[in-house]
């Protein structure tokens, strides 16, 4: 649904006093984001807690799901997704090791997505 469509829907709500104009203006709702750099590569980096390291965020989510009636969930781990545009992938590993992930507690993987 386009952002304009959502706005129109909100305005067509029968009680004008409750019809708060909702404008969802996130670019992802409109169209694909054009690349800012010519000839660049789009990469997606996934950073997550190392196996065996306590993940309190994952644990909190795991225990919240049954509270909402969702059953059958075993383990949950919460990580971080980083998307970047780079000229070359030569230094992506170094970026991950030095800044984007903390190798003491996190592992990472990355892929070229566009």
């Amino acid at each position, binding site marked *: 649904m386009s952002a304009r469509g959502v706005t129109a829907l909100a305005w067509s709500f029968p009680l004008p006093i409750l019809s708060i104009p909702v404008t969802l203006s996130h670019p992802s709702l409109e169209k694909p984001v054009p690349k800012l750099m010519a000839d660049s590569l789009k990469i997606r980096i996934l950073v997550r807690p190392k196996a065996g390291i*306590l993940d*309190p965020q994952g644990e909190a989510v795991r225990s919240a799901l049954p509270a909402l009636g969702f059953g059958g969930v075993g383990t949950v781990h919460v990580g971080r997704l980083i998307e970047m545009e780079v000229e070359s992938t030569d230094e992506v590993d170094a970026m991950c090791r030095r*800044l984007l992930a*903390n190798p003491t507690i996190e592992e990472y993987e990355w892929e070229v997505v566009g």
Partner: protein
Amino acid sequence: MRIGVTVFPGSNCDRDALYAVERMGAEPVELWHADADLKGVDAVIVPGGFSYGDYLRPGAIARFAKVMAPLEYFARSGGPVLGVCNGFQILTEAHLLPGALLRNTGMRFVCRRVRVRVEATNTPWTVLCEPYEELALPVAHNEGNYFADPATLARLEDEWRVVLRYLENPNGSANDIAGICNEGRNVVGVMPHPERVSDPVLGSDEGLRILRSVLAGARV
């Protein structure tokens, strides 16, 4: 003695630390994150707060601030450095201290006074404490759960590098660790805030026992 206190965008215990330095009877020196040198200070406190909004990970961005280059040089050449709370997190991110601080196991920000035991008095920041002295110090953190791999933990224990230990673990920290020091013992990181108990008007001045230690010669 001149004691520097680093100030990053988002530091929020820097004023408390500067005040505590005055209470210690030393001269406080503000060290701005963009400073290229340490203004000739004799010791440095890296205070608590949320440097750079804790973006990415607590301390991950601050670790690359300009002032960190001279600070790392100072620390590696034996200068006394104390990291408190976010300061501890910054020092681990900068690899001046081993391990990392994970999210508290209870998933809650913990803000209360906890009892800790001084486990090592042979650091410049604890030399005035009695061995195994118990102190009540405030903690205020969301990521205070100390983690290191088993080999590093064993090494910290073998080398008596656990400086403070919780008597009541508030965050799930490994081996109840509240503070550690580096191999040279001059760099100490603690999660509790000694600067927040530096004046009887704040309820206690027990924190001064830690802070004043650095005045006692720094050589231990």
